């Protein structure tokens, strides 16, 4: 029982990070049909800003604020420079553009920062453990679960209570018609990228907090996982992305805990097989939505 609860918390923490990343991918995809593979570099950017801010001995809250602001700016800049010129182009063009952006950023990180991991000296208070009876809950893990919950609640409120949020939901159903409401298309798209940057930034901080360092390739694997999560959930569905993220987190943690030791190196392969099995039965994903991309 204790072990089960412990693993549940692990799964919530890992799945939550995947969910935030998958959500960031889905927010952009639902509006302009772009799968942004440069999403991982947004995570990495958050990690580097955090590393430098802490190295410069800035106060911790300020460091966090800067580390979250950086990917928001970077995401909107990406949209303005790389994706706006190809908006409305085919899915392949968009995808290749995002690979290019991703590769360029990775090379910039390698050449101007370092190809090696840069340490992110998080405050030592964060590495402690809270003992709740038989449960040992890592502080970083708890923060990760709480942050994910806050982000999900915040995003839900934004999407359902504000004009900009409702415009984004409308745009994910019919972008052209949102323009007929007198709402600026560029504004809606920029907001989507800013939100995806925010989600990537928060996920990036949670990620570096667990590993303690950042390197140019850091974002690749988690974003690949998030992409898989978004596919399981039904690409473009925001609820689906969250569900897919948590599901993937649960699968991975469960396999890690209960797979025979000899099988552990194949954990990811087994996880992907399970994903394929899901897609064989639900090719559209668990919570599929129709994507409307007109004009």
């Amino acid at each position: 029982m204790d072990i089960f609860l412990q693993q549940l918390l692990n799964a919530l923490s890992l799945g939550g990070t995947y969910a935030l990343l998958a959500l960031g991918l889905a927010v952009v995809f639902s509006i302009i049909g772009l799968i942004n593979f440069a999403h991982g570099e947004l995570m990495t950017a958050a990690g580097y800003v955090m590393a430098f801010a802490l190295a410069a001995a800035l106060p911790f809250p300020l460091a966090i604020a800067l580390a979250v602001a950086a990917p928001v700016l970077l995401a909107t800049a990406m949209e303005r420079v790389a994706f706006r010129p190809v908006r409305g182009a085919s899915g392949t063009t968009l995808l290749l553009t995002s690979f290019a952006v991703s590769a360029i950023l990775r090379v910039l990180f390698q050449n101007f920062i370092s190809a090696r991991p840069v340490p992110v000296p998080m405050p030592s208070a964060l590495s402690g453990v809270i003992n709740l009876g038989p449960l040992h809950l890592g502080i970083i893990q708890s923060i990760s679960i709480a942050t994910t919950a806050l982000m999900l609640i915040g995003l839900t409120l934004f999407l359902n209570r504000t004009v900009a949020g409702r415009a984004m939901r409308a745009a994910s159903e019919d972008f052209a018609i949102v323009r007929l409401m007198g709402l600026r298309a560029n504004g809606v798209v920029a907001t989507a990228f800013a939100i995806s940057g925010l989600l990537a930034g928060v996920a990036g901080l949670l990620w570096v907090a667990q590993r303690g360092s950042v390197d140019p390739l850091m974002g690749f694997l988690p974003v690949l996982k998030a992409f898989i999560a978004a596919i399981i959930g039904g690409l473009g569905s925001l609820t689906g992305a969250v569900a897919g993220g948590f599901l993937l987190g649960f699968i991975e943690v469960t396999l890690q805990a209960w797979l025979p030791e000899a099988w552990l190196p194949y954990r990811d392969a087994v996880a992907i097989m399970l994903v394929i099995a899901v897609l064989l039965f639900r090719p559209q994903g668990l919570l599929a939505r129709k994507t409307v991309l007109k004009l």
Partner: protein
Amino acid sequence: MTNPAPLLDVSGLTVSYGAVEAVRGIDLKVTKGEIVTLLGANGAGKSSTLNALVGLAPRRARQLSFAGEDIAHLTPELIVRRGMTLVPEGRRIFPTLTVAEHLLLGGAKHAARGPLAETQAEMLALFPILKERLHQKAGSLSGGEQQMLAVARALMSSPDLLLLDEPSLGLAPQVVDRIFALISDLRARGLTILLVEQNVALALDIADRGYVLVNGRIEIAGSARDLMASAAIRDAYLGA
């Protein structure tokens, strides 16, 4: 005798999608207070014309002016803010958004809350059914209700000129009657309307003037009465 300056003044409007020319240099005028109808067979270029007027379709024109101002290079959002909007073909409502959310977004150009609430109250008085459905998702409405929602959403921007694309499409006859009664009502309130409609008899009954589009060109223009009386038009172009 001088004609008042037209609200919408278009000449040489061309719409092409790649190599395909859907509209080939048409001239069109709509004067304040009129209902003008654009008739023609499927694929004649009617919807393309309306989409081009609001900037949603790729367009070229010698002249494209609305309320005396050149709008040829404006984006749809800016055109809507100047007072011309479109109720698109097929209604294009947002299925997962509520009726209230549609009205809110439709009125997005009203920056202040006062005018927004006022316009919304006006819409709910005009469409009592929408008041009953205010917090329902638009996807759960009937076809007729969705059409009314699409019109109400467009009217929330307080337009001077409303472009209506096939408002009767896919609706039961009595619902169509209600929609057309509504269009007359809107004109009585001072709204100017450019109407695209498959149902030629209905459209000419309500309109002051009409244009007949054939293969992207205007073949005939005239008063609704003349068009109605012209057997040649009916036989040759309208298939009625």
